[in-house]
């Protein structure tokens, strides 16, 4: 099997991210929460590699600590949305008829709200904490997964090999699990990777509005949000977390693409 460039680059970026997140649990250059007003808004230097923020906290340490928070939230959200979305969309596509219509009517109603608004509403009800965030964002992204899965299931179940499975005498349910769902993996994998990016951004947005992970705990999103007033005088405050988000998205997308190709036997030699 050949190692392609996108597998290597994507893998390296994600490995770096995970490594950082794990390291941050044990060690960071400074305490990410320690306020040092004497060292406010310092430029990157040999002491503070990425400078300090408006409270004199070390940006590198906060980024490292934020990595674990952001990644955990994004990953948990994607897993939640995909699991529930696949079940909902699969059931709708499998049963068709009235069940499908009702499920999809609710689904489309949810889809009509901007995801962030939905998450906001849920956050206000549950309150701002990490698991609340995951639940809120997960709920917001379930409808798009369900839509994609239902469409894929509907198109795959018209394929001849599904009819072949029926002719053999397999039950509809068995055909669904053994033939339909595995062939629906590719679009879901693509969706899941791009969703990871959206969730990172949504987490930032919610944190920005004060409904994400509550301060002073750092996440990339609330760091980015907090850096806004200093954009002109201390650009490193926004560049550092922004770059982290961008590189993570790049890594996830590259890895997602190669994962999708890997999962498809037809592409294994490509």
């Amino acid at each position, binding site marked *: 099997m050949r190692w392609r460039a996108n597998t290597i680059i994507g893998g390296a970026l994600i490995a770096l991210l995970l490594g950082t997140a794990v390291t941050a649990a044990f060690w960071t250059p400074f305490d990410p929460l320690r306020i040092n007003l004497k060292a406010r808004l310092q430029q990157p230097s040999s002491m503070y590699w990425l400078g300090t923020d408006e409270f004199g906290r070390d940006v590198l340490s906060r980024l490292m600590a934020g990595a674990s928070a952001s990644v955990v939230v994004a990953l948990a959200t994607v897993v939640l949305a995909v699991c529930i979305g696949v079940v909902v969309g699969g059931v709708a596509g499998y049963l068709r008829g009235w069940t499908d219509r009702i499920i999809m009517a609710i689904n489309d109603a949810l889809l009509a709200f901007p995801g962030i608004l939905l998450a906001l509403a849920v956050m206000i009800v549950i309150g701002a904490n990490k698991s609340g965030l995951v639940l809120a964002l997960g709920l917001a992204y379930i409808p798009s997964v369900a839509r994609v899965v239902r469409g894929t299931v509907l198109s795959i179940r018209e394929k001849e090999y599904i009819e072949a499975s029926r002719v053999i*005498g397999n039950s509809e349910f068995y055909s669904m699990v053994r033939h339909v769902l595995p*062939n629906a993996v590719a679009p879901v994998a693509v969706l899941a990777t791009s969703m990871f990016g959206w969730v990172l951004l949504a987490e930032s947005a919610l944190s920005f509005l004060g409904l994400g992970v509550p301060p002073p705990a750092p996440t990339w999103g609330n760091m980015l949000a907090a850096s806004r007033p200093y954009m002109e005088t201390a650009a490193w405050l926004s560049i550092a977390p922004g770059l982290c988000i961008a590189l993570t998205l790049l890594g996830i997308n590259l890895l997602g693409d190669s994962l999708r190709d890997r999962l498809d036997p037809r592409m294994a030699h490509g």
Partner: protein
Amino acid sequence: MTTPLLTVDHLRIEAGRTGLVVVDDVSFAIERGEFLAVVGESGSGKTAAARAILGLLPPGLRRAGGRIRLDGEDLATVAPNRMRALRGRSVGMVFQEPMVSLNPAISVGAQMAEGLALHETLTKREIKCRCLDMLARVQIRDPEHTFNAYPHEFSGGMRQRIMLASVMLLKPKLLLADEPTTALDTLSQREVLDLMVELARDHGTSVMLITHNLGLVSRYAQRAVVLRQGRVVETGSVRQILSAPREAYTRQLVDALPRRRAAAPRRAAGEALMSVRGLKVSFCGRQRLFRRDAGVAAVNGVDLDIGAGETVAVVGGSGSGKTTLGRAMLRLVPAAGGEIRFQGRDVTAHDRAFRLAAQLVFRDPYSSLDPRMRVGEIVAEPLRHVAGLSVTERNKRVAGMLDEVGLDGFAERWPHELSGGQRLRIAIARAIVRHPSFVVADEPVSALDMTIQAQVLKLFERLQAQYGFACLFISHDLAAVEQVADRVVVMQGGRIVEQGTRDDVFDRPQHDYTKALLAATPVLDFAGPANMRASG
């Protein structure tokens, strides 16, 4: 003697990346007004050679040597501008798949007008006038309506006529026809090719017909070039090549044509295995706001008996309802009326024993295998429903079955790694691994090359003799039917118009439709094209 219209000299085409030679040292010439056939199987490089003439090799392939001269002009050295001017104007091409070679978003008229507007200076009205004339010329019933219609409104045969009309509008000197009728049924095939010959003769166009069907070659072409793996095997007059092939490969091709075997003494038809009475299937009309359009009866009152171990062929053009009949007999599409008795009892869609005993071999071996399962798993799947089979027994049976279809050791492969013929063998193995007593084969060989077809038909016959299943063989290819069938049923418009033993139907057809089908079937005819002209 004048110089030929087209000469291809030592043409060599390579795949850019791997350096694989696709066409190697191929030379041939086409005289003015000549009908040349290029014969070869998939992978013989015949399409690549044709595309090289147009300078339209697919990405990845490049011409590595040789010269192509059209009318004294070297096509290898002409500027891209000149090449574009030649395409369509001097060399026209008709593609294999009429379903995808017309743009579905543009009306037929606009597509036909494109070429004229590009190559000639005509007013809009003149263009339309010429298009309508040409549409009438290819026997399209309502040219005015067709001109404004969209491709999806037409059947494959009609689309191929439209394609032909739009190409011939420019009166090219050379027409390249790449398997133009492979996707069509026998009757439309005959009509389209007859039209092509007629138009070519009227305009003095030379034709290069690319095909794997020797019957068509014998009916239409004067000379033929046989290609194999990118090399010319044999060139000569059609009569010589078909009646006295010099090379072993050509002989193999000629031998691969389905032949009638002597009618084997079949066991006396006692109790019918399957018996169908008054079967009706209709497809629902479109759902409108408050009502439903009237349905279409795809199968309309069919009575049919099939004895144990017997092969009954169902023949008919596209839309005759033969495929629907096959599916309805397996209870895969709901019937609107009639009854189906299997071993004497009435069966429904939920009859477990019937489902396990009756199997289907699909038309398209490319889409009927799950792309995410290995060959071994695919063949093993039906055995899930055989009670009390241990894993070792099951694996043994799968290996045995694969060996039986000539694919020993393929269990770990993926379907996409196999050729069409191999996939069909897998599909057959899957259908009979559970030893069914009734198998429906839906156009099983229509997508395959001649030699592969012959092998698969032979395999099918052998397996049938061995396992003794009865078979409903659905096909529009009368030549294949002649080889395998015991009895033949002819369908038209959802009804059976004639049925009888194979010899009766083939030698003493009663119904006009049967006669038309038989007449349209290309058979090896050593009298050559002269004969065709006399009859056409």
